[in-house]
């Protein structure tokens, strides 16, 4: 297979951290690549805290979410879900529901469910209806003229079950002889949203694996031997809980099935995945399926594809001949739309007395309910150079709702354990935790270089030099300080494409099918385009969230800005150069001397030639100029590359510091301060970047202290499936948070942008747990830090 490589040229690009050290390095880049951008200080729009372009729509209520889409004749849908945790469905009687006033369609799911693991041998379980494997699993859907009618009719669907024994907890399901969630081995191909599990792994009972990390070059050396021979060993067991996503806009779709086309309004992180899955499931050409997503009210990993709710919505729309609105209610959202799996991790670290890491040995089990994907990330393999590393990561199936990718899937759980064990190692060695990281975080990649600087900045901001010995306070309330490091990969969506168009009146527009889940896709897109034309960001039309536009990336894996902005800049650059070429004769100048600046265009050094951008377009006699560019590969290529998914050679770092108070009498923990120092390549918009880092830190704090799904083991019922029962950090729990963002130029693309959403969420829980040790002298190895878990840890 020989992919057509474009001809290349050698280009000198800046490499390093602005304000620290910048070198010029040579890169081989595609011949049509624009010249490299200078540091942000020399730019007009990129790197500036531009207001979010759709901010006014959001503060005035005009932003139209899928939740708000109202079409003529639109019906409202409700799902029928199981009231048992594990059962064969004997019969489904919809006759009463169909007779209910206002009901227009009923549909019963009769195919394997999406988002669930699938039996390798589907004949192992031949049945008319999918087997129920968790309490709240969707069975059918009803569409009616009002939501109330749909809700009432859904309750009239009669289901007869043949009950099977169930197992809802990780430990229970791991036991020999535990009730089997699946009657045979399973597969779960990864989807656009990530997740999934490596194919072909062994499965014994409910336990599938191990994943030995082959993908990341593991095993390496002899971890067990190196642990035995180490000067110092840290051997510890960690437990993390199930967390639910709780996007403020629940999973939502309005499906409009017509004779000749299907239009889907979707609250999604990836419009393309909705189109492709709908086309696949309903055997439609992709050209007949259009997906529109003006605004998505949060996703955090769980909003990919059409989902089972979408499968129902589309079927109902087809049956009723009318648009159907399917929005999960808050309970359904908690129970069945995804979660972060729990984990039970046994981690051993070995080190020399002078603080060199010699061994990492990990065994982990986690449960994503009826879905696979409960690994604990890749930090063990990639973060710290270490000659002896082995991992055995297992999925354990339970009768619980399926997991989904969730902001740094796996990595959040894995780093909670790894960074706490390193803190313990530092303590045992009598080395400052920052000094230990300086000794072991020595990899050649950009994330390691960034973290070195981030440790210094963060230490200064939090006042690390004033950090005391563990358990220094004599009273009941003890204060402590801790730090932990973050790591994420630089994920690129190779097919990312963007069109930039100039119209005769001077309008400039950019088009991509990428959506905005709240990160500011429109804004960063407009900024990179505006920079090329010397315009303001708000003078560029940024059109997103429609599969009729060129293919954009998913909002997941921290990949939108790093994937989209180089394509957008390249398209804008080519359009600007074509415009300059068309203007050149009129201005009697060389096109290379024509520049765009401050809303004007003219010949460099010839003030008399300057005119407004609009007049320039008119003078050039342009009807329309259009250029489309695709995301070129990273200049140094990828660590791993598939047609739809590539991982850069350099990762994304981040270091976080926490100062907390622990009340040792009540077990309550209060976070006083958090300092988050992060890198994201070139920050395109520091204001929006800061917002995302706040978000990551607050979700991390919330995960560390409060959030936990509770299932009743007897019934399998999710006991806290609403906002008043599932505690999430709110305004009163928000500490003082200080964010600092590096500007790091990696010399890998025409914008050098990378992501930040995930790394911002990775280190927080570990930083808080390490602060807990500093406060109390005790380790807390179980999340969340609720009073019960805290008091247990203090008594240990």
């Amino acid at each position, binding site marked *: 297979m020989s992919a057509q490589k474009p001809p290349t040229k050698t280009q000198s690009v800046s490499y390093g951290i602005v304000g620290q050290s910048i070198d010029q390095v040579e890169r081989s880049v595609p011949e049509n690549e624009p010249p490299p951008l200078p540091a942000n200080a020399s730019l007009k729009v990129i790197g500036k805290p531009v*207001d*979010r372009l*759709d*901010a*006014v*729509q*959001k*503060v*005035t*209520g*005009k*932003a*139209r*979410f899928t*939740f*708000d889409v*109202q079409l003529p004749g639109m019906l409202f849908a409700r799902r029928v879900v199981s009231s048992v945790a594990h059962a064969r469905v004997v019969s489904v009687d919809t006759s009463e529901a169909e007779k209910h006033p206002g009901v227009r369609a009923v549909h019963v799911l009769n195919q394997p469910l999406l988002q669930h693991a699938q039996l390798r041998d589907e004949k192992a379980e031949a049945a008319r209806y999918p087997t129920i494997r968790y309490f709240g699993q969707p069975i059918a859907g009803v569409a009616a003229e009002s*939501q*109330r009618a749909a809700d009432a009719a859904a309750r009239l669907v009669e289901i007869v079950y043949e009950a099977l024994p169930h197992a809802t907890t990780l430990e229970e399901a791991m036991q020999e002889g535990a009730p089997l969630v699946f009657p045979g081995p399973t597969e779960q191909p990864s989807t656009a949203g990530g997740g999934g599990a490596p194919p072909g792994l062994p499965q014994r009972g409910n336990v599938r694996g191990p994943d030995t990390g082959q993908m990341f070059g593991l095993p390496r050396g002899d971890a067990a031997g190196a642990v035995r021979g180490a000067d110092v060993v840290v051997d510890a067991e960690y437990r993390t809980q199930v967390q639910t*996503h*709780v*996007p*403020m*806009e629940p999973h939502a779709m309005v499906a409009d099935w017509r004779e000749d086309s299907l239009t889907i309004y979707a609250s999604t992180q990836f419009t393309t995945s909705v189109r492709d899955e709908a086309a696949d499931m309903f055997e439609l050409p992709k050209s007949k399926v259009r997906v529109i997503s003006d*605004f*998505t*009210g*949060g996703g*955090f990993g769980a909003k990919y594809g059409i989902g089972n709710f979408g499968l129902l919505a589309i079927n109902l729309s087809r049956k009723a001949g009318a648009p159907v609105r399917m929005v999960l*209610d*808050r309970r359904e959202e908690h129970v069945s739309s995804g979660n972060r799996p729990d984990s039970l991790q046994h981690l051993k670290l070995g080190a020399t007395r002078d603080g060199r890491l010699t061994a990492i040995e990990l065994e982990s089990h986690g449960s994503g309910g009826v879905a696979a994907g409960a690994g604990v990330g890749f930090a063990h393999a990639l973060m710290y150079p270490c000659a002896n590393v082995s991992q055995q990561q297992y999925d354990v199936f339970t009768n619980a709702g399926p997991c989904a990718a969730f902001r740094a899937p796996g990595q959040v759980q894995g780093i909670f354990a790894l960074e706490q064990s390193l803190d313990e190692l530092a303590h045992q060695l009598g080395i400052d935790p920052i000094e230990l990281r300086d000794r072991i975080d020595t990899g050649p990649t950009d994330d390691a270089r960034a973290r070195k600087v981030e440790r210094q900045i963060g230490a200064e901001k939090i006042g690390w030099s004033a950090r005391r010995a563990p358990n220094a306070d004599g009273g009941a309330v003890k204060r402590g300080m801790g730090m932990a490091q973050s790591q994420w990969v630089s994920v690129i969506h190779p097919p990312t494409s963007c069109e930039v168009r100039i119209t005769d009146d001077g309008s400039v527009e950019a088009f991509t099918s990428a959506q905005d*889940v*709240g*990160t500011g896709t429109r804004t960063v897109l407009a900024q990179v385009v505006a920079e090329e034309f010397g315009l303001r960001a708000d003078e560029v039309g940024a059109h997103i969230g429609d599969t009729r536009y060129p293919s954009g990336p998913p909002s997941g894996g921290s990949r939108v800005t790093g994937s989209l902005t180089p394509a957008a800049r390249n398209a804008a650059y080519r359009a600007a150069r074509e415009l300059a070429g068309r203007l050149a004769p009129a201005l009697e100048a060389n096109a290379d001397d024509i520049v765009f600046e401050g809303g004007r265009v003219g010949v460099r050094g010839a003030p008399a030639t300057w005119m407004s951008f609009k007049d320039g377009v008119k003078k050039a006699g342009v009807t329309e100029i259009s250029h489309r560019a695709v995301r070129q590969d990273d200049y140094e290529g990828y660590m791993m590359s598939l047609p739809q998914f590539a991982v850069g050679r350099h990762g994304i770092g981040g270091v976080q510091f926490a100062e907390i108070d622990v009340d040792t009498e009540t077990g309550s923990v209060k976070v006083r301060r958090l300092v988050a120092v992060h890198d994201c390549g070139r920050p395109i918009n520091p*204001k*929006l970047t*800061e*917002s*995302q880092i*706040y*978000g*990551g*830190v*607050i*979700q991390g704090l*919330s995960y560390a202290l409060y959030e936990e799904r509770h299932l009743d083991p007897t019934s399998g019922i999710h006991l806290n499936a*609403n*906002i*008043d029962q599932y505690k*999430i*950090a*709110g*305004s*009163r729990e*928000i500490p003082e*948070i200080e964010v600092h963002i590096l500007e790091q130029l990696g010399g890998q693309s025409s914008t050098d942008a990378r992501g930040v959403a995930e790394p911002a969420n990775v280190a927080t829980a570990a930083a808080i747990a390490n602060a807990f040790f500093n406060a109390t002298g005790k380790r807390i190895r179980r999340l969340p830090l609720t009073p019960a878990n805290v008091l247990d840890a203090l008594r240990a």
Partner: protein
Amino acid sequence: MNPQGSTPNENDAAVSGPGAGILTLVVNGRTVQAMADPGATLAEVLRYGLGLTGTKIGCDRGACSACTVWLDGEVAASCMTLALDARGRQITTIEGLGDGATLHAVQRAFVEHDAMQCGFCTPGMVMSCAALVQRNPACTLDDVKAAVSGHLCRCGTYPNVFKATLAAAAQLRRSAADAEGRR
């Protein structure tokens, strides 16, 4: 009265329902009518009866405050308010904040301080913060935290909500001082 006991016109009888009847409300200063049965919440009527979709529903039980509106100037969870109970009251929704052409000081500050990410909780947040600064332009950080303590923002944009609201309050104080100076 028809056999279902529904009242085609709210003025005809003291008893409403169970079917839908015409409901008259005052929303954003305008008298409007919608069909609603007695079980309908104000949030439902605003969104599906009147097309005012700026008011969101995040939980349907008063636990997330995405549905916050003003009733006679006081914040209320519209998902926990029966539409019938809003009769005769001045209802203000996000669409009616400010004077239409210009943004309210809190809305401007939210834009400037990026006090939003996905934006789904934003209308509710804005309504509570705007009520706070109007009631108490001298509000402190603790006051802002208390005012939005019932609001859930899953994107975690609280720090900017705090900054924006305090900035808007300061702006209102300056405007008030200027007006005082001109008198």
